[in-house]
């Protein structure tokens, strides 16, 4: 069932990513980590649909947020990040997905690992924990190309300063701030060992990012002693190295 969402706010997260807040009448509610299908339609009836992770915590106002990264050759993402204005209407369907989710009843330690725009569903989990007044131990390891590519920076900082804080580690792959302790590089065993919960705490791990990132992070978590059934993954984008 498609519902109409009215754009009520727009916010640029980075030079290429934008958060769109929609007010959706009769939104049935969602759980952090779920996604929605978004449909856009041209005047002649041609339409295109893409899936986007929800960035917002469940809320009673029927507001849903998505953060869209503009893909250079994309069909829908350039429209959503450059053309859409407040009061425009988009069609949404969902929420969808029941596996890559965090529910407020979960009390075990949570390890979040984001690669690039893979932060979006993990941010929904962090926001969901905060809005429920939760104290479940959360850690976030967030790998991005460079400091300017980080989404939600101020809000993440506020969460990490809070008394029931979310422990936050940034890692950069292309360029890092001056004096950054770790030179720009992909995630590796040492980083996973230092920046994630010890496996004897039996954390539930959520890993989201491009395929090669998720393959690597999930493999490193396993190698550190985390059981595969405690590692949930969500991947997007092409594999890059095939064809």
């Amino acid at each position: 069932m498609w519902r109409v969402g009215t754009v009520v706010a727009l916010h640029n997260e980075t030079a290429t990513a934008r958060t769109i807040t929609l007010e959706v009448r009769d939104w049935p509610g969602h759980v952090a980590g779920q996604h929605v299908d978004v449909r856009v339609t041209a005047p002649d009836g041609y339409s295109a649909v893409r899936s986007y992770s929800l960035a917002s915590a469940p809320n009673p106002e029927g507001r849903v947020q998505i953060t869209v990264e503009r893909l250079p050759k994309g069909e829908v993402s350039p429209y959503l990040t450059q053309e859409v204005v407040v009061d425009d209407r988009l069609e949404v369907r969902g929420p969808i997905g029941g596996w890559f989710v965090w529910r407020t009843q979960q009390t075990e330690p949570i390890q979040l690992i984001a690669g690039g725009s893979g932060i979006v569903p993990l941010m929904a989990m962090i926001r969901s924990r905060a809005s429920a007044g939760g104290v479940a131990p959360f850690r976030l390891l967030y790998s991005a190309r460079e400091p300017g590519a980080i989404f939600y920076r101020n809000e993440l900082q506020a969460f990490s300063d809070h008394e029931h804080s979310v422990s936050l580690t940034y890692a950069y792959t292309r360029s890092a701030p001056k004096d950054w302790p770790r030179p720009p590089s992909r995630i590796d065993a040492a980083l996973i060992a230092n920046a994630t919960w010890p496996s004897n705490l039996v954390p539930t791990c959520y890993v989201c990012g491009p395929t090669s990132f998720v393959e690597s992070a999930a493999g490193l978590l396993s190698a550190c002693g985390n059981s595969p059934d405690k590692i949930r993954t969500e991947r997007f984008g092409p594999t890059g190295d095939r064809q």
Partner: protein
Amino acid sequence: MGIISRGFSGRRSTADVKLPPGQYLTTDFPVLSAGPTPQVPLDQWEFTIDDGTNVLRRWNWKSFRDLPTETVLVDLHCVTRWSKLGTSWEGVSLDTMLADLKTDASYTLFRSYGDYTTNLPVKDLRNKQAWVVFRFEGKDLAPEHGGPARLLVPHLYLWKSAKWVRGMTLMHHDNPGFWENLGYHIYGDPWREQRYSGDE
């Protein structure tokens, strides 16, 4: 028709191909999995067919690879909306694996290394509709795409083509598998756009 999106023109495909509704064409091969990629050594690999009580057929890698193989050219349709056309696979037809197996079961549940499951009617496995494949585009199937061997049922959405398969259970009733328990359609025909459990 949906509401018009002011300023959206879209990019129609110029290729003369018919895709299932709501799908777009890609030349990449995206990966979707619920967890880490299992590493399955060939000397430990096996595939079994059981009826819930008894194992009816069992292959190790060598006896499986001794079965006659077929090379097929098929289109893939993923529920996340990408379609990839003309992919080449080599594997063993389920017609071969089910030959001589007398069963009145109507449904199956496939099991994978890594504990993934998915359900399929028996009638969707016979008559050149399904294979256990081990080669993609002439190369051994990579682990992230389901290697050493995965199911291939190209007439249904790709989540039905279970990666890392290790066996199947014959059943008299349809039981949902992993994604089918998490909001996805019990059957998953892309031409009828059976994506989610609410779809017709």
